[in-house]
């Protein structure tokens, strides 16, 4: 008897009991259900929620794999014993840190989804599949596992389940989780230590009196915000050989993931494009201010304002946020015109927050969360505008 049959039998056994949704979910996560309807007219679509989720996860896998190698690479780089990027040493450091993050993220998140499904007596929803993958990619490598667990529990319950589960949430759950981490444990989410595996530990050893060299690896944005010179060249930033959250460093892989999403029609190209346009606009405004000498070298905003506008696109989490999080179909605008406005403002605000928030030089998280809140409003006005236009046309015709 195969696994499929076992699962099916279990499902039948628990039918009608309290635990039924959990077994049903296990069964359908892995296989097609045994019973399908045969007669009547059906519309067949290939992209159900589960498949949509899987495609997004596939688009993120390159970022994850790159993140695993990069974690090890950055570790050895910072500790003064550089290794080849594609080496077992780098892979080992990365996998031993990132796998637990992934397991905790999925374990806690899906655990809560199952619990809520059983209590509310509905089917387990697939919404967490993507969130669970996003979460490890957007946190620093040294995030303690219990913090991640607390944040995931908060994000899933307060960010999603209280609104009614997948499809009803106002805020992107993965970003809610990250925002919670950032506001609850700021020392673990910013600064120049958390981005390098082992740097925090090394710091504690030094504090305990051991004679070791301090290790630090500031993100590009952090360096710029402090007005220091960046030690990485443009190609490193584009390819992703820089410190940062696990999966967001490699712009090229994110672009490939984005193209994959656009090609499969899962991600909205309107949002991605308009967000890039928005970021470029804001970047150009800041560059203009610097060129017009409104902002001079003494200003604390000089470092980030004088960064060429196109560089803003390849540093920090902007690319990752734009491709994988702004396009979340639940929390983004639904109308086409709305998507343009929504995306543009995300890009625009991201760069603005980046420059003006010295405490935390990354704006894409807050920009997306803010625009998530406004997305329904944007849609409302777009729809109302359309209604008005048609009413006018009707009047002209009748007159």
């Amino acid at each position, binding site marked *: 008897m195969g696994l499929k049959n076992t699962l099916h039998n279990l499902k039948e056994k628990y039918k009608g009991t309290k635990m039924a949704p959990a077994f049903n979910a296990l069964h359908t996560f892995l296989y097609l259900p045994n019973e399908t309807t045969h007669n009547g007219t059906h519309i067949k679509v290939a992209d159900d929620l589960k498949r949509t989720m899987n495609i997004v996860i596939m688009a993120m896998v390159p970022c994850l794999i790159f993140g695993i190698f990069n974690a090890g690479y950055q570790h050895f780089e910072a500790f003064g014993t550089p290794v080849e990027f594609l080496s077992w040493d780098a892979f080992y450091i990365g996998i031993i840190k990132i796998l637990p993050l992934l397991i905790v993220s999925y374990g806690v998140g899906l655990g809560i989804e199952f619990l809520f499904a059983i209590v509310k007596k509905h089917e387990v929803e697939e919404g967490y599949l993507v969130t669970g993958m996003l979460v490890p990619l957007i946190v620093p490598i040294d995030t303690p596992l*219990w913090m991640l667990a607390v944040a995931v529990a908060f994000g899933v319950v307060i960010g999603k389940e209280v609104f009614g589960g997948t499809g009803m949430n106002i805020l992107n759950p993965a970003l809610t989780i990250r925002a919670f981490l950032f*506001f609850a444990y700021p020392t673990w989410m910013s600064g120049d230590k958390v981005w390098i595996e082992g740097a925090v530990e090394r710091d504690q050893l030094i504090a305990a009196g051991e004679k070791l060299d301090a290790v630090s690896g500031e993100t590009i944005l952090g360096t710029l915000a402090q007005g220091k010179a960046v030690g990485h060249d443009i190609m490193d930033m584009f390819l992703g050989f820089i410190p940062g959250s696990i999966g967001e460093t490699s712009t090229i892989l994110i672009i490939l993931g984005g193209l994959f999403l656009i090609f499969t029609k899962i991600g909205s190209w309107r949002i991605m494009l308009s967000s890039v346009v928005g970021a470029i606009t804001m970047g150009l405004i800041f560059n203009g201010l610097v060129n017009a000498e409104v902002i001079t070298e003494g200003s604390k905003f000089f470092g980030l304002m004088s960064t060429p506008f196109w560089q803003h696109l390849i540093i920090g989490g902007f690319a990752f946020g734009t491709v994988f999080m702004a396009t979340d179909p639940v929390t983004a605008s639904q109308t086409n015109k709305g998507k343009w406005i929504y995306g543009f403002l995300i890009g625009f605000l991201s760069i603005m927050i980046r420059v003006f928030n010295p405490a935390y030089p990354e704006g894409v998280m807050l920009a997306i969360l803010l625009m998530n809140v406004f997305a329904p409003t944007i849609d409302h006005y777009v729809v109302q505008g359309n209604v008005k236009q048609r009413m006018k046309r009707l009047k002209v015709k009748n007159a």
Partner: protein
Amino acid sequence: MGLLSKKDAKLIIDPLADDNPITIQVLGICSALAITAELKASLVMAISVIFVLGMGNVVISLMRNIIPSKIRIIVQLIVVATLVIIVDLVLKAFAYELSKTLSVFVGLIITNCIIMGRFEAFALGNGPWRSFLDGIGNALGYGVILIIVGFFRELLGSGTLFGFPVLGDPIAKTGLYSTGYENNGFMIMPPMALIVVGIIIWVQRSRNKALIED
């Protein structure tokens, strides 16, 4: 309760749970969110409101037959303002540090919807004794929520209760902190107060389904 008749006891007990001013009537939220980062501030705020609402209800109830209804809001404001100024001055005299923490929120008791609500809804139509019980009951209901919220926010946000470190020293890493636990900085921020109040409302309504509105 031997002292009170069943009807009078209801005045005190109802607002504690099933007719709670914060979680059911959703009044007085503003101060509940602002000052609950510390348990001590919550407690002092609760006591202040108990005093103001208890006394205020009695005063309004005594005057209820001589207040012309056109100017009753002004009279109510004068009564509550007088009482709030007494509280404010007492705090400044005996607990100056705390009065700085509470700052403007003691003054804002004047605009606390619970107080005006009870004056309007109860004290204007009932005798002084019953009004007194109603005032104490509602203020206690307000205070209970404040203290619950303050308890969780101070414990999880600062690791202390009434300023006393119950979880160990976060800097020397003793107690719970030696296991890697850290204070949750988000708990001290006002948004978290809203979420904690929300969770209390959630728990209360799932225990008593009759409270759920459509």
